[in-house]
C-alpha cells in the first residue's frame, strides 16, 4: 500500500539533495573540525558555509548570528535561559497559552524558580489580542516569547509586531519559528527579533539538528558548557553531517517558500474545502492567517485516535489533538485555549502538507474520509 504522508508538521522527508550533501561527512570526510590536521580542519569550512546558507534563508544580517544546536527544543531552551540571564533583575516573562511544550514547559519551570509568567490567551480563531499584550507589558518584563506559527492549527502570529512591542519596553523577544521557517518568508535583518529557534527535520533536513538565531550584539550565555566549539557558545563536537544537511535544506527552503504559498496551499485548500463539506465538521484556526500547508479539522462526536487508526489502516498518516494520542488525557491545550467545544476538540485531525505531497494524496484522503467518519459516527452514542 502506498503511504500518503500528511504529517509534515511532525516531521518531513529528508530531501534527496540534502541526503547527498551530508553523506560525505559520514564516509570519506569524517574528520573532527576541531582537529589541527587538514583532514579534520577542512570540515570546518563546511560548517561556515552551512551557517551562511541558514543566515540567508532567515534574512539575517550576518552568518555569525547563527548557532547550530541539536534541535528546536534545545534552541528554545537556550534562547529563553540566555535572555533571562542578560536581563537580570527583571522577573516577568510573557508568552502564550498555545506555545509548543519546548517553551511552555520552560515557562512552567521558570514559575517554580520565582518568575512571574503571563500566558496570553487566544481567541476562537487562535489569534492573539495585541492590545492585551501591550497592556501586560511593563519595565519588569525580561522576555516575550511568542511562536511564529502554531504547530497544531498553523495560525501565524504577527511576530514582527510583537517584537517591536517588546523592544518598546526594552524586553527581549524570542520566537519559536520551528513551524514557520521555509513556509513563510522571514527577514530577520529588518526586524526586532532577538532570538529565533528552528529545527532541521521540519524543513526536509534530518532529525538531530537545529539552529538558533541570536541577533548580533545580543549578550549570550551558553546552555551547553564544554569546548570552544561555535565560538564558545555551545560546547560539544559539531554534528557535521547534520549541519551540512541543514545548510542545504535551508538553501532549498528559501527557494521553496514560493511553492508553499502557491502549490502546497492550493492542495491544502482543496482538501480542506472538501472535508468541511462532511456534516458536523469545523475548521480550527483562522481561515486566512495560517501556514499554507496546515489544516486542522474537527469531526463532531467522533474521537481523533479512532480516526487516525482507521486512516493508518489505509496508509494515511496524520495527527490528532485528541486526548488519546497526546499522552495526557485531555484534548490539546491549543484547542482548549481556543475554546473549541469538547465534542469537536476530541475529534480533531491535523493534516499537514509539504513539498512532496501531490494531488493524488489529496484525492486518496477525500476518498477515505467521508465513509470513515460515517462509520465511526454509527458507533458513537452521541448524534444530533
Amino acid at each position, binding site marked *: 500500500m502506498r503511504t500518503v504522508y500528511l504529517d509534515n508538521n511532525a516531521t518531513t522527508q529528508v530531501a534527496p539533495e540534502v541526503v547527498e550533501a551530508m553523506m560525505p561527512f559520514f564516509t570519506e570526510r569524517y574528520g573532527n573540525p576541531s582537529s589541527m590536521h587538514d583532514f579534520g580542519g577542512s570540515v570546518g569550512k563546511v560548517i561556515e558555509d552551512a551557517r551562511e546558507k541558514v543566515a540567508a534563508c532567515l534574512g539575517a544580517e550576518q552568518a555569525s548570528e547563527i548557532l547550530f544546536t541539536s534541535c528546536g527544543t534545545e534552541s528554545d531552551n537556550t534562547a529563553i535561559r540566555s535572555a533571562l540571564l542578560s536581563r537580570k533583575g527583571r522577573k516577568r516573562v510573557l508568552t502564550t497559552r498555545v506555545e509548543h511544550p519546548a517553551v511552555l514547559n520552560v515557562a512552567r519551570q521558570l514559575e517554580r524558580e520565582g518568575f512571574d509568567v503571563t500566558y496570553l490567551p487566544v481567541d476562537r480563531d487562535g489569534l492573539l489580542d495585541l492590545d492585551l499584550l501591550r497592556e501586560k507589558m511593563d519595565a519588569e518584563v525580561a522576555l516575550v516569547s511568542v511562536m511564529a506559527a502554531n504547530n497544531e492549527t498553523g495560525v501565524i502570529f504577527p511576530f514582527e509586531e510583537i517584537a517591536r512591542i517588546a523592544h518598546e519596553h526594552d524586553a527581549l523577544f524570542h520566537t519559536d519559528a520551528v513551524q514557520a521557517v521555509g513556509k513563510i518568508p522571514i527577514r530577520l535583518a529588518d526586524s526586532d527579533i532577538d532570538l529565533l529557534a528552528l529545527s532541521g527535520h521540519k524543513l526536509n533536513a534530518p532529525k538531530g539538528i537545529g539552529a538558533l538565531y541570536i541577533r548580533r550584539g545580543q549578550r549570550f550565555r551558553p546552555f551547553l558548557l564544554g569546548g570552544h566549539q561555535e565560538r564558545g557558545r555551545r560546547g560539544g563536537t559539531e554534528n557535521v553531517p547534520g549541519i551540512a544537511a541543514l545548510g542545504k535544506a535551508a538553501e532549498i527552503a528559501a527557494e521553496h517558500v514560493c511553492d508553499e504559498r502557491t502549490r502546497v496551499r492550493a492542495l491544502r485548500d482543496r482538501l480542506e474545502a472538501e472535508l468541511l463539506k462532511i456534516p458536523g465538521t469545523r475548521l480550527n484556526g483562522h481561515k486566512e492567517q495560517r501556514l499554507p500547508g496546515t489544516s486542522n479539522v474537527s469531526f463532531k*462526536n*467522533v*474521537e*481523533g*485516535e*479512532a480516526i487516525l*487508526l*482507521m486512516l*493508518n*489502516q489505509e496508509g494515511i498518516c496524520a495527527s490528532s489533538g*485528541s*486526548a*488519546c*494520542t*497526546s*499522552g*495526557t*488525557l*485531555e*484534548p490539546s491545550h491549543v484547542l482548549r485555549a481556543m475554546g473549541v467545544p*469538547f*465534542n469537536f476538540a*476530541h475529534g480533531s485531525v491535523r493534516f499537514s502538507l509539504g513539498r512532496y505531497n501531490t494531488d493524488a494524496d489529496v484525492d486518496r484522503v477525500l476518498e477515505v474520509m467521508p465513509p470513515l467518519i460515517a462509520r465511526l459516527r*454509527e*458507533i*458513537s*452514542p*452521541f448524534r444530533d
Partner: protein
Amino acid sequence: MAWDYTDLVKQHFFSPRNVGKIEAPDGAGQVGSIACGDALSLTIKVDGATDRITDAKFQTFGCGSAIASSSMLTEMVKGKTLDEALSITNQDIAAALGGLPAEKMHCSVMGREALEAAINDYRGVKAKAEEEKDEGRIVCNCFGIAEGKIRRVIREDNLRTVEDVTNYTKAGGGCGSCTAQIEEILEDELGKKAAEEAAVQPARKRLRTNLERINLIQEVLDNEVRPILQKDSGDLDLVDIDGHRVTIRMVGHCSGCRAAGLTTGWIEDKLREIVDPNISLEVLEE
C-alpha cells in the same frame, strides 16, 4: 505515542461486534461523557426465566481501545447469567483482548462500569459507579472522579502508583492538580493493605500442628470466603481436610455457576496466602 494494540484489539476495533442500541432494552447503562473523551452506552436483553443475557449492544465514543473493549464486552456477556456477567472484571475484558496498553486500562474499566450499570438498571438497583458519584468528595475535577471510585479501583486492580490510578480511572490525567490527593489516597490504601498483610503473616508462622492448620482453614473459609459467596446467594461446604488437600463443595448459586472456576481459584489463593502456600483445593460436584 504509537499504537501498541494486539491483533484482537484491532479486530474488534475495525470490525466491532454488536454495534447499536437494542430497542426497548431490559437494561441500559451509560458511562463517561463527551467532556471526558470517552463514553459507552450498553443495552441488554435479559431472559427473565433463566436470568441470562440474551443480547447486548453498544455504542461508544472513544479511541481504538474503548471501541474494542466495548465490542469484546458484548461478546463476553451474551449467554451469561447476570451474576456470571457481574463477575467479569475489567482485567478480564483486557485479558480477553490479549491485553491493553497500560495507559488505556480505563477503557476496560468503563466497560465493566457500563455492564454493572445495565444490570443494576434491569434489577432496579442503583449502580455502584453512580453511588460513588455521590459517595465522597470529587478528587479529580477534570474528569469528575470521586474518592470512592479511586479507592475501589486501587483495591480491585492492585494499583501501586499515581500513574496506575490515572491509567485505570483517568484521574490525574488532565491538569494534574489532583495528583497530591491521589497520592494520599494511595498511601492510605497501601498502608491498609500492608497492615492487613502484617496481621495475616504471623498467623501463618504460628501454625505448628495439624489441628492448628485445620482450625485456620475453617476460620478463613467462614470469615473471608463465605460472606462473599453469600452475598451472591451462594455458599460452600467444607468436605474434608487431608494434609494440604482441602475439599469443598459449592452450593446455592455458586454450584454450576459459569464463573465457578474463577471463584474456586480465588478461594485457593486465599487459603494459600493466609494458611499455607502448599494448599491445594479440590471441588466436589454436587
